[in-house]
């Protein structure tokens, strides 16, 4: 926790200043501002169409912002052509050159920058060793598996020692098991080389597992940026709460520090008026036999459905006022009928609609 916290309080490497991007009528990015700290692993998370890939392409230089500026290490970035930026990209389908072999692919950037020949061979070897692909130096990329291509794409980008590495859904083409494995490798690789990673994904679990910070995008705007723990525990908006993990959204009316939501009534600090609360399913507990905690809200509900998930199970509960909420409890065998449940008021997080 403290390691992550200290990383993102580092000075900014990249500053995205009020950037907008239009494609014809469509506004893909809406005056978005964001700072990427030196050495951090920052994830741009969002649904397809949220603008995350466009933002990446603006940073790489494949697109020009309609308005706003990009600055890196105190220099204007958005006016430079892509080949003059000290930014490298790992592409979604890797975009390895099929007509070049593995080491030629890795050497490509060094050759383009006129690195002395003696250095090229050495650095290519180091890069291949780093991703454990030394023995495939002369193979053609099309002969490699997805995971191997992925490693070559990483080596090809990192060998240039960029200030910032952009990763555009690099794991999405891999199957589930390999994906988990590559997540681990990616994270340790980032620690090893100390290069700032800007990672794009639509997979919230992946984002949670890898990132120092997550920037959640929605419709071309920044919804929330925080550490994974922070964003999960204290989502700022209903959208964030629902996108990251599962949640119950409770629509309540607050009067005199009491939130009234039909079946549930609980104390809150929110001002009077309509309010929305996020209550994670694992924060609802079965009450059977437990004593009544002073600040807990108890209620009875019918178990409508039960989804078994190994160590836990998810219950779909029908309250007597017709509301449906979900609770995640420790696996307890088949359940049915009416039971008593409770939650603590501090777990109901007020969120913006």
């Amino acid at each position, binding site marked *: 926790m403290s390691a992550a916290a200290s990383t993102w309080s580092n000075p900014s490497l990249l500053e995205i200043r009020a950037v907008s991007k239009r494609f014809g009528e469509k506004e893909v990015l809406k005056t978005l501002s964001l700072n990427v700290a030196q050495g951090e692993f920052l994830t741009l998370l969002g649904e397809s169409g949220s603008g995350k890939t466009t933002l990446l392409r603006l940073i790489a*230089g*494949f697109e020009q912002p309609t308005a706003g500026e990009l600055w890196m290490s105190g220099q204007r970035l958005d006016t430079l052509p892509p*080949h003059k930026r000290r930014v490298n*990209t790992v592409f*979604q*389908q890797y*975009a390895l*050159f099929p007509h070049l072999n593995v080491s030629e692919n890795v050497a490509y*950037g060094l050759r*383009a920058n006129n690195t002395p020949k003696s250095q090229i061979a050495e650095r290519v070897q180091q890069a291949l060793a780093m991703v454990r692909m030394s023995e495939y130096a002369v193979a053609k990329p099309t002969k490699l598996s997805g995971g191997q291509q992925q490693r070559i794409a990483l080596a090809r980008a990192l060998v240039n020692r960029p200030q910032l590495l952009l990763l555009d859904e690099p794991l999405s083409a891999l199957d589930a098991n390999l994906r988990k494995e590559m997540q681990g490798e990616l994270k340790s690789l980032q620690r090893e080389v100390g290069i700032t990673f800007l990672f794009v994904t639509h997979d919230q679990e992946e984002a949670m597992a890898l990132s120092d910070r997550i920037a959640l995008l929605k419709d071309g705007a920044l919804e929330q940026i925080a550490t994974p723990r922070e964003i999960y525990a204290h989502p700022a908006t209903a959208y964030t709460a629902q996108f990251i993990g599962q949640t119950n959204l409770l629509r309540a009316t607050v009067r005199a520090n009491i939130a009234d939501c039909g079946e549930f009534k609980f104390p809150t600090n929110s001002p009077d008026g309509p309010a929305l609360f996020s209550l994670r399913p694992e924060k609802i507990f079965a009450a059977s036999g437990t004593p009544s905690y002073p600040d807990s809200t108890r209620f009875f509900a019918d178990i409508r459905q039960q989804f078994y998930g190994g160590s836990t199970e998810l219950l779909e509960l029908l309250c007597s006022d017709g509301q449906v909420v979900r609770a995640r409890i420790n696996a307890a065998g088949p359940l049915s009928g009416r039971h008593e449940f409770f939650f603590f008021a501090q777990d109901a997080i007020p969120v913006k609609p």
Partner: protein
Amino acid sequence: MSATTNRRPLFLTIYSCLVFAFIYLPILVLVIYSFNRDGVGGFPPRHFTFDWYRQLTTDSALWNSVLNSLYVAAGAVFVSLTLGLLAALALDRADFPGKALFRRLVLLPLILPGIITGLSLLMFAVAAGLGRGLTAVFFGHGTALISVATTEIFAGLQKLDRRQEEASLDLGATPWRTFWLVTLPNLRLSLIAAGLLIFTLSMDEIAVTFFLIGSDNTLPQEIWGRLRRGITPEINAISTLILLVSIILITIWYRLRTRTQKSSL
């Protein structure tokens, strides 16, 4: 399991065989009679001979026309590939006023009867003081066949992953270097295939050539001239050789084309 895809209807099979026969029988007849001692008419062909081919070897007018055709075709391949490549790139990635008109204009000779292109180029050649001759034919072929080059290369470009070029720029290569190191190598097969096709078409072209030719004949013009004087098995022999070369070139072209399609998967 669909009824339409698995049962092989007898009637349709026979009909298709007949269509194949219609396409190939004339060509077959042409080849057979090139080996017939007693000339082109008469049935059935009786005496096998290589005489007509032997006669070709000493036919200097014919070989001159072959050289002329090779000269024109080589030039046409160079010009139309270069401009076709640029036109395909422009259609794929540049926006300029009149782009739709430009596309139509480039592709027009593909569908327009050769006589129109031939005549308008003749008027241009005369107005420009160039006059008729092999140079005019070269300009004619080079221009008309840009349409073929553009369609072939444009198809190749659609299969090129744009991210390859982005990756190259991203790794620090200039746009110029990216063009030579990534764009061109990726279009290699398309370019060779288009080149073969253009070469074959130029060697065979007659409608545009008809109006632009001067005193030096191309191969098809030479044959055309001889046809007017009457049918001889010598022409069958020439035609058979042309056929052979065309089939070889076209087969290579086809193989290359299917290879580009497969490698893109």
